[in-house]
């Protein structure tokens, strides 16, 4: 991207604060401008994550939502812009964070009413880090046919009328956002439309000035003439005059400073923009217009003559080429009630996380690899998928006497079909049977991450009155080790990190001193090894989510289904009759 361009057709941005309307407005603009990719790469909304469903053209797309700027920037290192829709209370903090994030170069701040000192600090930080701020208190801007900031340019109808979906050759800069939109229309009538338009915002010290944008327009070969609208108050116009005088601005500039009425009012009127108040004669609209004109800038006789002047000057300096390009039609939109992000059966071929099923088969992918695609939504490394496969095998069955298998057998013998009998067994999985993996993951992770010692962790769990999930077995003990755990532990040599497994083994060492059977059991071992695997492959936030959702027990349920079905089929083959428990085995109290 040239330094004279802030945004182009491939620019993507973060949108801070989930606001459905301006996000949709941006995507509509993208579609009308025939952008190939949506301009909003991701939404950042504190305390939220997931996806935001919105339209790109007439089909829906999902935009990822992240809880903080850091995570978003890590995931989207190419995204160079952040549009901040936070309120004036929190806009300072989030803008500062964005300024200190390397990959984000341009920050637009919409909030009105930011404290002057905060604006100044952001501005100084931006200069230090070579970044650009648009605003605060701005609606943003548009590069016609390329990129739109938030609500700039209004509704789709307006985008079409003012021909903002394709580039013209006028560079526009204004303090006011409303007037910027008004000028989009004026320039579409008086010239061939804007190439770019920016509203710098009405505050005392806007993050970027009228002049800074004019200098970019000067350097941009697509821009033939510059239109600018100033306001009374401040000295931004005198900077422009200096640049014009020193030859830094050579393109024709048509500029008007509004606020000529102020001189007839009996006292200093504070107009709508915070910066719009003339503190001295020099800051008055009349003085500025006079000075601009003396410096060789084209100043219309009055605002009323502005459009006419643009028309005349445009004729002199640019050729009007009627760009016949039409905007595409958005068409009819239908909102969907369901969202799916893991597989697609609509095309010629079924895909799992965008991988065609034929590829999966031809590569001989294992169930572990398919779980990678459908559960974790990515291709997992070899050790990880092998670990999953191993878990699936190890947990597939544990004999007929465990409660899940028992229930499946009882249901099958009551004449229930295979699926009902399976459900009966699966529904038994819970905290006391097979369901300890998730809980083990939760507790071991928390303790290990908080830096608790093994004995400290045991002490704390005791205080809370919780038996440590993943520790202890009915039958197996130190002397009679669980072969499955041995196999898993042995496999851990293939892992990139065994932080959690090591921690769990340290805990086991302490618990074994209390009782022989307080070993790290198979649930616990799977849990901590799964933690080690996901912590190596996913971000902290993603690990939070995996643990919270409960992938561990899901793995157990899937695996054990194999064994449960086996028992059901076995019972059916054996033609076993209805089981009725012996009343002698029940104590009637």
């Amino acid at each position, binding site marked *: 991207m040239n330094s004279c361009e802030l945004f182009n057709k491939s620019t993507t941005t973060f949108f801070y604060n989930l606001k459905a309307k301006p996000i949709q407005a941006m995507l509509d603009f993208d579609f009308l401008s025939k952008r190939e990719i949506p301009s909003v790469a991701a939404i950042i909304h504190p305390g939220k994550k997931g996806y935001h469903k919105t339209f790109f053209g007439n089909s829906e797309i999902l935009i990822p939502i992240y809880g903080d700027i850091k995570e978003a920037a890590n995931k989207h290192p190419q995204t160079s812009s952040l549009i901040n829709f936070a309120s004036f209370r929190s806009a300072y903090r989030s803008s500062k964070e964005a300024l200190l994030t390397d990959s984000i170069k341009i920050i637009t701040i919409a909030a009105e009413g930011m404290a002057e000192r905060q604006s100044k600090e952001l501005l*100084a930080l931006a200069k230090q880090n070579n970044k650009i701020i648009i605003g605060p208190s701005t*609606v943003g801007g548009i590069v016609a046919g390329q990129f739109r900031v938030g609500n700039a340019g209004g509704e789709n109808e307006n985008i079409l009328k003012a021909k903002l979906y394709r580039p013209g050759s006028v560079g526009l800069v204004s303090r006011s956002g409303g*007037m910027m*939109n008004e000028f989009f229309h004026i320039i579409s009538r008086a010239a061939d439309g804007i190439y770019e338009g920016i509203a710098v915002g009405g505050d005392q010290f806007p993050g970027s000035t009228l002049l800074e944008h004019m200098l970019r327009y000067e350097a941009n070969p697509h821009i033939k003439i510059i239109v600018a609208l100033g306001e009374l108050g401040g000295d931004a116009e005198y900077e422009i005059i200096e640049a014009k005088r020193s030859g830094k601005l050579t393109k024709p500039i048509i500029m008007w400073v509004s606020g000529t*009425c102020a001189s007839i009012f*009996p006292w200093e009127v504070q107009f709508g923009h915070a910066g719009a108040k003339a503190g001295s004669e020099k800051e008055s609209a009349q003085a500025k217009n006079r000075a601009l004109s003396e410096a060789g800038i084209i100043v219309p006789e009055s605002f*009323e003559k502005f459009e006419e002047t643009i028309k005349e000057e445009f004729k002199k300096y640019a050729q009007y080429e009627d760009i016949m390009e039409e905007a595409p039609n958005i068409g009819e939109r239908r909102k969907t009630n369901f969202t799916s992000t893991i597989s697609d059966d609509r095309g010629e071929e079924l895909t799992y996380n965008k991988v065609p099923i034929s590829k999966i088969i031809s590569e001989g992918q294992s169930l572990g690899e398919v779980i990678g695609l459908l559960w974790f939504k990515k291709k997992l490394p070899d050790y990880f998928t092998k670990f999953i496969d191993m878990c699936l095998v190890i947990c597939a069955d544990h004999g007929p006497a465990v409660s899940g298998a028992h229930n499946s057998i009882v249901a099958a013998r009551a004449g229930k079909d295979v699926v009902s009998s399976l459900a009966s067994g699966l529904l038994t999985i819970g905290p006391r049977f097979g369901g300890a993996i998730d809980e083990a993951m939760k507790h071991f992770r928390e303790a290990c991450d908080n830096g608790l010692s093994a004995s400290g962790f045991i002490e704390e769990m005791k205080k809370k009155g919780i038996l440590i999930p993943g520790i202890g077995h009915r039958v197996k003990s130190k002397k009679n080790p669980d072969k499955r755990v041995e196999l898993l532990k042995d496999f851990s040599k293939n892992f990139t990190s065994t932080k959690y497994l090591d921690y769990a083994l340290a805990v086991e060492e302490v618990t074994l001193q209390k009782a022989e059977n307080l070993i790290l059991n198979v649930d616990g071992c799977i849990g901590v090894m799964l933690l080690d695997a996901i912590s190596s492959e996913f971000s902290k936030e993603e690990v939070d989510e995996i643990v919270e959702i409960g992938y561990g027990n899901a793995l157990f349920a899937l695996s054990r289904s194999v064994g449960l079905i086996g028992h059901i089929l076995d019972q059916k083959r054996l033609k076993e009759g209805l089981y009725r428990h012996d009343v002698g085995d029940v104590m009637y109290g």
Partner: protein
Amino acid sequence: MARKKIREYDAKRLIAEKLGLDYNAVLVTPEADLENLPLWTHTIKLTVKPDQLFGKRKKHGLVLLNADLEQAKRFIKENTNKEVTLGKATDKLTHFLIEPYLEHEEEYYLSIVSGRDHDIINFSEEGGIEIEENWHKIKRIEVPTLKDIKDLDLNVSENIEQFIKSIFEIFREENFCYLELNPFTIKDGKVVILDTVAQVDSCSVKTEFPKPFGRKIYPEEKLIENIDSNSGASLKLTVLNPNGKIWNILGGGGASIIYLDMITNLGKGNEIANYGESSGNPSTEECYQYAKAILELMCKNNGKILFIVGGIANFTDVRDTFKGFSRALEEFTGQLKQNNVTIFIRRGGPHYLEGLELIRKTCANLGLKHYVHGPETSMPEIIKIAEESLS
């Protein structure tokens, strides 16, 4: 919200509090009991001056020096509610500041201005009322926004350097935008501030600001200020000349100024009754309250022309805002008709067609003269349409 002046009394009190010093002073308001002044005013000589956000008081002969309590009271009584004209503004004197009178030799000057990249300190050992004549003797120090003043060497005598640095820190911490101490002096080794002008950033300092000298405050303005401070949108109202014939409900911070410019250009600036603007997508209810306040003032003061105009909004919903305006118009039908009011409307933006249709119907039903235009009519064109009615 922007830079606003505060009283000398409030500025000095704040500075003294931050410096951990006593500030002996009384702000006398019209309600104050002059027989009940603090004890110290009985025992020492006093200085009395109005404290109403205007400067050059000495040059206007409004400062009483070296007075005893009786003289001070007499001065205040004589001047309270006295009309004074300063430049274009005429107003009554209502607030007076009583301070201890101080014989002094040196008069120093200090001002701090918040600039874009720096805070700028201006200091002179020759302050006082002749400061403008002595401006070339000013020492100017620029302190970059992120720089700590502690790290700077100001090259002035040590106790003055300490004082300037303390004031500078207060300036930043308390969100001042402009602070002028002219003069301050040193008496018995202590710094005494004699005269102060101060502006603060109203976005960070939440207080009730005194009105500018010469401006009358209307309850309707207060009401809108209140709505504005509780809203994410922006709603502003300033009555300029209640006897003016032209009243305005303006949309957009930028467009609102331009409309008044164009009316002024027609030579009708003296007929403009109010300034104001609403922007940032105010709700229907807020727009109703806003229009109601303006119509109330307009009807009371026999206004003849009503402009409901703005630019082409980016995201302010014209349908929702015009719903509010229509409701307010309906409430004032009788008076608007009686005053033979003509309404000129021009607005663009989201849902403008529905908005315009709604207000057109309202005006027609009420039998008010009206001209309703959308974005195809330019801003100057609607003023042109109104020109005949304006003359």
